[in-house]
């Protein structure tokens, strides 16, 4: 078999449902094989779109997203998408073509050292030099991407290796001696954690994306209900615990709810599950949760004690460990006084915005929630739109929010929505977008229309790079430098691609527009002309303690 055929055969055996990609010179042998294959191939309009789509596919399902690009510019165009997946621990396999092995290093046409370029933004990467190694490398790539703390893996495949022939042997088993993730919590650590929990008077559960990756949402709910601890989530953790649950504090951190931040600051015990104490969550580190002991559950030992001091580290898979922990906790602590305090914060500092007869972006998000009954997959771009989507939509299920948390990549949401829709064709998929971000991968409209991938895009069009404008307003004396962003006529633009565009300039048109968008069988751009200078509150300025909140206390 040729290398190209082996690749396609392996992808099939790995259960790959779709490939997102773009052709080019050195991947011709692969595309020739794909011509006869029944693996679905989605031709995007930009390799960045392919990478984000593969990522969105993965986030929506937990399955491994796959993207494919040619060497040189094709490969470098994937990099932002790979880095985005890396920062959020998303399993993905990126395949790139490479110039012939004997030309590598000669500055050949369309040569880029992509394994060198992606080394810091992949979990691992491979340059295949011998076709005999190919099958095993593909197996290892899928294994590494999806196990332990997941992440993107890149395989760089020179064109002569694609053409070379060898006997195909499917490696049944993968053994990598330097890679042995821990899945079950150490019983001694579980005991210690259980003891701390039983003694706690003011516990808070702090849940991150690891809950979703590991599928630990049921166990998380069981634990929270068993010990009656309130649950604060990171952006990545939203959906890991139902947003409508009485113990849910919503999101914490820079734009988190005031009550989540007060709760974490007042806690005497933080049970961190699959979260990494990112600076957007902790605020000023030396002022973070001064009274709290910390139990930290994470599959990545390097995430533990990286930023904060941890009393009880428990390394392993969140689902297993929470299960072990629930068994081990014999006596739930009595924390009724604490819950009262938390409820009091919730009543005194609710999430709110000043509604009026203009279109408030928060209102738009609320209406989307109302009309989808929380049952859609929401993707977001980056900026204010992302924070409003996090605050005002209630995520009831894991994998219902898909957002670039770690890298904060503008242009992510639309192609990610596309990938999510390919993965879950029966789901409504809505990208809550900004007018700036949507312009970063807007070319994917063509991909959506051609392939009938009907995603809905709700553009919160404020005429600004709103989040940057907000910082300039608050911290740079309203000196608006390069944040006023001209946008095209989104309705005409959508129509020119064969999609549907809806312009919304009045508040009473908001609901009907969403209803119409949800009912038409096409990709839809909704252009909501929202209040231009609306700000995201509450807000903790960068570098402040997370209970030094501005704007949210009114």
């Amino acid at each position, binding site marked *: 078999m040729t290398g190209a055929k082996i690749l396609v055969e392996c992808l099939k055996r790995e259960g790959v449902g779709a490939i997102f990609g773009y052709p080019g010179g050195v991947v011709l042998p692969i595309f020739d094989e794909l011509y006869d294959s029944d693996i679905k191939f989605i031709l995007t309009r930009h390799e960045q779109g392919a990478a984000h789509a593969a990522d969105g596919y993965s986030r929506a399902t937990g399955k491994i997203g796959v993207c494919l690009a040619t060497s040189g510019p094709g490969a470098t165009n994937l990099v932002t998408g790979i880095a985005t997946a890396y920062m959020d621990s998303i399993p993905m396999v990126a395949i790139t073509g490479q110039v012939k092995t004997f030309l590598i290093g000669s500055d050949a046409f369309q040569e880029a050292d992509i*394994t*060198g370029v992606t*080394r*810091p933004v992949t*979990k*691992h990467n491979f*340059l295949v030099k011998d076709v005999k190694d190919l099958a095993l490398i593909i197996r290892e790539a899928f294994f*590494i991407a999806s196990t332990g703390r997941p992440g993107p893996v890149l395989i760089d495949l020179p064109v002569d290796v694609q053409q070379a022939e060898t006997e195909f042997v499917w490696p049944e088993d993968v053994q*990598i*001696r*330097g*890679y042995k993730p821990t899945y079950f919590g150490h019983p001694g650590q579980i005991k210690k954690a259980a003891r701390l929990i039983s003694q706690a008077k003011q516990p808070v559960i702090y849940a991150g994306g690891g809950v979703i990756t590991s599928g630990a949402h049921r166990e998380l709910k069981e634990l929270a209900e068993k010990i009656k601890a309130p649950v604060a989530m990171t952006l990545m953790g939203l959906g890991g615990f139902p947003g409508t649950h009485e113990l849910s504090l919503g999101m914490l951190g820079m734009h988190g709810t005031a009550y989540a931040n007060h709760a974490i600051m007042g806690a005497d015990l933080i049970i961190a599950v699959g979260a990494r104490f990112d600076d957007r969550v902790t605020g000023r580190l030396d002022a973070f949760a001064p009274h709290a002991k910390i139990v930290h559950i994470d599959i*990545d*030992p*390097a995430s533990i*004690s*990286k930023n904060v001091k941890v009393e009880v580290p428990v390394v392993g898979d969140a689902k297993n460990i929470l299960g072990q922990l629930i068994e081990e906790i014999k006596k739930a602590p009595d924390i009724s006084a604490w819950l009262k305090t938390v409820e009091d914060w919730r009543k005194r500092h609710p999430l709110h915005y000043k509604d009026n007869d203009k279109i408030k972006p928060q209102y738009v998000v609320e209406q989307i929630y109302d009309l989808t009954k929380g049952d859609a997959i929401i993707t977001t771009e980056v900026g204010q739109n992302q924070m409003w989507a996090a605050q005002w939509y209630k995520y009831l299920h894991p994998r219902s929010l898909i957002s670039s948390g770690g890298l904060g990549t503008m242009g992510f949401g639309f192609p990610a929505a596309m990938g999510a829709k390919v993965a879950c064709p029966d789901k409504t998929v809505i990208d809550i977008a900004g007018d700036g971000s949507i312009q970063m991968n807007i070319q994917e409209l063509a991909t959506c229309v051609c392939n009938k991938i009907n995603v809905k895009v709700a553009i919160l069009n404020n005429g600004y790079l709103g989040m940057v404008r907000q910082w300039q307003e608050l911290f740079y004396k309203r000196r608006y430098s390069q944040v006023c962003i001209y946008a095209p006529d989104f309705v005409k633009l959508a129509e020119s691609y064969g999609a549907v565009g809806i312009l919304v300039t009045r508040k009473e048109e908001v609901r009907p527009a969403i209803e119409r968008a949800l009912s038409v069988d096409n990709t839809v751009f909704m252009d909501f002309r929202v209040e231009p200078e609306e700000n995201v509150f509450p807000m903790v300025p960068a570098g402040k303690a997370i209970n030094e909140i501005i704007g949210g206390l009114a």
Partner: protein
Amino acid sequence: MRHTISVLVENKFGVLARIAGLFSARGYNIASLAVSETMDPEISYMTIVVEAEDVKVLEQIKKQLNKLIDVITVTDFTKKEHIDREMILAKVNYSAKEKVKLEGLFDKYVGKIIKAKGDTAIIEAVGDQGQIKALLDQLDKFGVKELVRTGRLAIAE
């Protein structure tokens, strides 16, 4: 504080770049690095001397190294009985007058004059950190024109 750690890695191309990249990306400092094959040609052994202001940083370095797929084991010698050695080659000023004095150094230190030509002698020496430092202080009195060092090697007892 300097710490000596050793890392067993898969002997594959790009491994050194991964290790070096990890240190530079995360802002850790390498004081010295020695790499070579082991008896098993598929495995390389690295001795790395790292600069870490506190235990937390050292712990992170070890954890991050362990995360690399090609890293098989990481050993920290900070609290472990071990032997460490470094070899140096140095060109020092040389004259017939000082010959005896220079040779006399090697009664105390492990090393020798490999070659003496004109006004330069090339010296090799091996020792632990303390010995090498002491020897270099001595050699400095003659005038060191050029110095190369292997970096530290370490092996557990």
